[in-house]
């Protein structure tokens, strides 16, 4: 019997090695898998490359992982925010590497990895410093920049409901990076609010089919996430 549901977030992340590339879902706090990040901090893997839209807010979640000095490199579109102090400090001290990627290019590089695309041309960033040193090509009347996929060893994402096959439904704008990150990692670990019997999710409401998911863990809700920050 297929059963991707694991008992605890600790068990779900036990094998993450040092130096792994880890995608972390979420846009701000919406869709951020906070309990999985806490478990990753507890687990101790270091020298990680993290892929996320941001570089952490306040003192919790991804910011706490950075604070614990587990991150060697971050690939993101918008690191600098009013409350990104842990990233800011380590970046200014030269202790963390930043690969800055336009948000749509970040999403498409993740999607491309999951879809088996070798590379793609995008018009975004042509003629800017974020395209410096990259291959460009004129196609029709437009200039494009060559971009490569971003693959990951692990993706940590948050969904709303899952069944034992790993089928997922999401809640509102918390969906954001979840579906594409699930497709781009060798091992996708999902935290959900609720696990349900096989067949309880309407086939039409399954946004991420279980083929993209390896492990599911149901977590207890965390009160007032982010409000303390």
């Amino acid at each position: 019997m297929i059963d991707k549901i694991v008992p605890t977030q600790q068990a779900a992340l036990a094998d993450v090695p040092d130096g792994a590339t880890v995608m972390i879902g979420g846009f701000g706090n919406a869709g951020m898998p906070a309990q999985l990040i806490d478990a990753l901090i507890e687990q101790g893997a270091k020298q990680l490359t993290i892929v996320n839209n941001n570089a952490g807010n306040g003192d919790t979640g991804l910011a706490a992982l950075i604070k614990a000095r587990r991150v060697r490199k971050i690939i993101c579109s918008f690191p600098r925010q009013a409350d990104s102090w842990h990233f800011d400090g380590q970046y200014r001290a030269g202790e963390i590497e930043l690969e800055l990627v336009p948000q749509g290019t970040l999403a498409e590089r993740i999607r491309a990895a999951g879809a088996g695309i070798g590379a793609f041309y995008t018009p975004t960033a042509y003629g800017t410093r974020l395209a410096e040193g990259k291959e460009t090509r004129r196609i029709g009347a437009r200039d494009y920049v060559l971009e490569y996929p971003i693959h990951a060893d692990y993706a940590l994402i948050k969904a709303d409901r899952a069944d034992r096959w790993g089928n997922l439904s999401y809640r509102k704008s918390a969906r954001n990076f979840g579906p594409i990150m699930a497709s781009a990692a060798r091992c996708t670990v999902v935290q959900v609010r609720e696990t349900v019997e096989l067949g309880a999710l309407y086939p039409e409401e399954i946004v991420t089919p279980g083929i993209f998911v390896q492990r599911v863990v149901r977590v207890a809700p965390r009160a007032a996430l982010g409000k303390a920050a």
Partner: protein
Amino acid sequence: MKTLDRNQIAARVARDIPEGAYVNLGIGLPTLVANHIPKGREVILHSENGVLGIGPRPAPGQEDEDLINAGKEPVTLLPGGAYFHHADSFAMIRGGHIDFCVLGAFQVSATGDLANWHTGEPDAIPAVGGAMDLALGAKKVLVMMEHVTKGGASKIVERCTYPLTGVACVHRIYTDLAVIDVAPDGLRVVEMVEGLSFEDLQRQTAAPLKLAAAAKAA
């Protein structure tokens, strides 16, 4: 001379957004435009984190941390609204499906180059977000900004000195002084505020302007 305040610039932008338009409003000043779309005109707002059909701010106590806009502020969803993932959201942007994008700017050049993501200071931590995708992808890119900086320097320039967000991507500029189109032959003044002469406007603008044939006072 009556210069426009931020809300008046936003109201002027809103006048150009027609019924049925799909619109992305950039973080900050451009979000004011939503407050000035006339009641009864159906305009569908897109947010790059994966929402179409954004409604007004929720009432206090009704915020939902799973329903936010690109500025990470709580929002609501209108009947007919939809959620989608990030790659689909940027397909809407990059694929030319968004009719209008309204962005703020540090500088716009005479050929429509846009600089709005980086001050160029060596110790600044860069952050780009969706600005480069929006600048390139929307059918019409509208910029709203003060005409000059706090120090009095023109934000409309021959060539941007700040790092570029996009090349030749701006279609129309709305400032506290004027509405200016980026045309193939240069910058064309479409409207000026009451009491401002073309000569005065040109003096405050660091790129050559032309007066469009139908130009009028706002």
